[in-house]
């Protein structure tokens, strides 16, 4: 039987998008384990191709969002996670997961701070795919929609030039079409230089089927998939092909 790549989803106290994110990972083909972080140890990464940080409010996010989760992760598997990345592993952070990856310094420098409007925002947004070659976005169209739901999704960098640099270098893989939350350069998602670490504020796991769209007449084309499906599908295929290509 064909072996399926394994995904490990870390569940912190307050993580709350684990079930639907695991469902999305399973839907495209991953074998997925949701692991409460209390049971996390370095050995858990053996045989894993993808580590996922899903949405939620880890530890309540009462201090800077993702901060405590990043410290706990660092303490438990910090070195292992860096080796994991060096050795070809993939990391995906969605919403709170993006905030955690940023805090772990696994993505280009930046902070996700309170939205410019000072509010929690639950709405659908349109984005431009600036990294069509990214293993996370290769099957996604040049423009697509996903829902956001966050209070702290405004990506800021030390200065405006740094953010502009991310657009130039390709680190800014996803940008909002409209100014949604005051993010510098309207950045919605970032990738690292290897392309294997990716974080985004919008929730691809909430748009797996065309019918998840707010407009019942949204055209999902053949298969009736939503835009989020193609993100997970891209990732699955990239990992699958990578593993097939290994000696």
């Amino acid at each position, binding site marked *: 039987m064909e072996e399926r790549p394994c995904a490990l989803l870390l*569940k912190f*106290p*307050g993580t*709350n*998008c684990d*079930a*639907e994110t695991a*469902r*999305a990972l399973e839907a495209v083909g991953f074998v997925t384990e949701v692991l*409460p972080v*209390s*049971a996390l140890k370095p050995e858990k990464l053996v045989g894993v191709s993808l580590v996922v940080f899903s*949405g*939620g*409010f880890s*530890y*309540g996010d009462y201090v800077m969002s993702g901060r405590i989760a990043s410290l706990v992760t660092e303490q438990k598997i910090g070195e292992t996670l860096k080796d994991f990345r060096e050795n070809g592993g993939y990391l995906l952070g969605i919403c709170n997961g993006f905030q955690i990856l940023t805090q772990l310094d696994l993505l280009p420098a930046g902070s996700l701070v309170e939205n410019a409007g000072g*509010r*929690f*925002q*639950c*709405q*659908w947004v349109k984005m431009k795919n600036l990294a069509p070659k990214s293993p996370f976005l290769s099957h996604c169209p040049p423009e697509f929609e996903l*829902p956001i*739901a966050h209070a702290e999704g405004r990506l800021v960098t030390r200065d405006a030039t740094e953010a502009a640099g991310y657009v130039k270098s390709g680190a800014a893989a996803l940008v909002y079409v409209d100014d949604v939350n005051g993010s510098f350069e309207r950045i919605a998602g970032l990738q690292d230089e290897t392309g294997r670490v990716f974080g985004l504020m919008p*929730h691809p*796991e*909430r748009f*797996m089927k065309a*019918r*998840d769209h*707010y*407009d*019942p*007449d949204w055209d999902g084309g053949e298969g009736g998939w939503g835009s989020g499906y193609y993100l997970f599908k891209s990732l699955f295929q990239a990992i699958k092909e990578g593993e097939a290509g290994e000696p």
Partner: protein
Amino acid sequence: MSDPATLNPLERIAEAPADHYRVLKISDLDGDRLLELSKFMKLSLSREDMLAIQAVYAEWEREPTDVELEVIAQTWSEHCKHRIFGATIEHQIDGQAETVNSLFKTYIRDVSQRIFDSKPGFVLSAFHDNAGFIKLDDELAICLKAETHNHPSAIEPYAGANTGLGGVIRDILGAGKGAKPIGSLDVFCFGAPDTTMDLIKADDVIHPLGVMRGVVRGVRDYGNRMGIPTISGAIQFDDSYIYNPLVFCGTAGVIPIKDIEKKVEAGMKVISVGGRTGRDGLHGATFSSAALDTDSHESDQQAVQIGNPIEEKKAADFVLAARDKGLIEFITDCGAGGYSSAAGEMLEQCGGVIELDQVKLKEPGLVSWEVFISESQERMVLAVKESSLPELRKLADLYETELTELGTADGSGILKVRHHGNTVCELDCSKLHDAPTRHLKGRWSKKTSPVEAPVLTNPGEALRDLFIDFAIVSREPIIREYDHEVQGNTVLKPLAGASGDAPQDASVLRISGSKRLMAMGVSLLPEWGKTDPYAMGAACVDECVRQLVAAGADPDRLAILDNFCMGNPDAEEELGALVETVKGIASVAEVYGAPFVSGKDSFYNYFETKEGPVSIPVTILISGMGIIEEESHVTGASLRKSDSLLAIIGHTSGDLGGSVFARRHGIKNAPVPATRSEEALACYRQYYEAVKKGYIRSAHDVSEGGLAVTLAEMAFSGKAGLEIDLCSLPMDDDASKAAMLFGESPSRLVIEVAPEHLAKVADLFEGFPFAALGRATTTHANLHIEWGKETLVNEPLADLKSLWKNGLARYY
């Protein structure tokens, strides 16, 4: 310290002995002193109650401990026991006398029981558990529970609403052997956001805007952190809610049918999971059973709890994992009354011992009664087999929540509480729940009389005027603060249309593990109840059911909840209005076959202002859940295609009473439209046939603002303009133009159908009130309404939408 035996109870309490509990000598007190004691201890027990307690203890030939008195006060409180719904009421309706022996039994339970019997196997549990369950499919059941948190929200809006939602989520976690919370609703009644300070006739009352902002953020921060989508809701604004805002929080859950039945047996261990116990939330249950005044804003702060959603999230993860492993025998939440009512509920038949020394405290030095009745949040109480304990401890470690062994069920039928080596409470549980029946008086007489409808000189202007009314304006700024998509199952979202900002009626959730879906709807119409509470009750049931049916739910597979709020039950007219409301909901529920599966009530929503007491109007929230057979049946409320035809189902009455139009135009005491329930149910069933055949593109209920507002709201989807002609509208012969356009008679739906399906849909409605209304168009983007040759309304939809979208945004 003086010898306690020589002191009377009040003096003894005033002495505040360092001991952790006290025996109170009540046997020689008269009624006045007993009542004084009740007030002093904040027990909220009446003289009659205290005398009954005295009699019980005389029989037992001993004196109560303070813990026992507190326990009895909690269990007999209105909050826990619903004694007004169980009272004997001498009621007068238009001078005719009648006696109601328990509103609950007569109009809620018995009506529902008849419906249960007519639909065997559908309602799986009602009234006795934390929430009622209905069958979704062969494997799964769904439940819904709504609670109010009015008093705390008046005093501390953020924390009050926060813990209101936290509490009802725990109700779901404690329903059956633990249901998974899948969606929440929130319904609020506030004073108007633009209330001027001179309208507020008491000190320390929080301005409605402050209440609204605090309440919304409280709900947001709990629901979002718990990862439960807040998908459904409503807000009513009225001056009568300035002092006593209403905050209803509801949550739906799903459970495997096999996990609904639960039982405590002798030998089981009683454990607590989640947060620690502190002094927060002392006397919450009794506090909510009394009226508010300016002092409440200072002195009752202690009764408002502090929420910690992450604590609850960890407990929830634990509970659901433990349930899936079959480790839970019984579970309930710690709500009003804290451990005393949770353990009381759990051990009322079996009996058992609770060891307060085991309880983990937030702070040292709590005396026995404080530990036992504290309403500290985020605690669940479980009964488990002793052999399951090791595995449960592992799970608690895994999810980083605290598990405490509280005691043992022993089969004695007696609730025993121990602390520091003493038995501080020893109560026969069967006695504990025997509160004296209350005797009350109610009266109501007709308040409406026919009025001349105003001549509409400019209906377009009247329509624009409705779109700035707080009853109608878009709730978008608030909806967007709630995560309504988490869990990834929200198919029909609270906002719809081509730009995702048009209104929706019911919301619909997919249920993981089932092909069927769940619809959720809410209705409350307090304006109607001011003049005609019976009509209000009837119309609320209708509107809630109609929302569910419009969204694609089977009209014969739905269930509803009743949540009442009122002012002073000792005021005869207020209680009379309540009685009429209850009759109204019961009459339509029975015709629709829509059983009540759970309900709650909140009294004493009145405030002692400088100018006398101000009560809220009797307010009923009907919320409901319905089952949608398959995803293709899900029907939104937003216009979808520019080639569609529109039609109306239901009869338009000439009565303008209760409408937003009437209120804005100063029309007072106009008759309120009646609910034609038999006809409506038949129409809903035909509509469901049309849904199943795939004929319905969208459907919107006609509610606040009437038909003209409904049509415009559908077209706020941005897909097309509308050409409407009202010449064949099914209506009363003498209905005025105002009633046609803006009347709010119930049971009406506007439907959108493909041109090729209109004739087939019309056939389905042969013999029922039904008429084609017009069509969608791309030639203009207006709402164009004609009546024969006369143009009544021709307004650009973009202008109307802009009014509607910005009405609340300015204030929130």
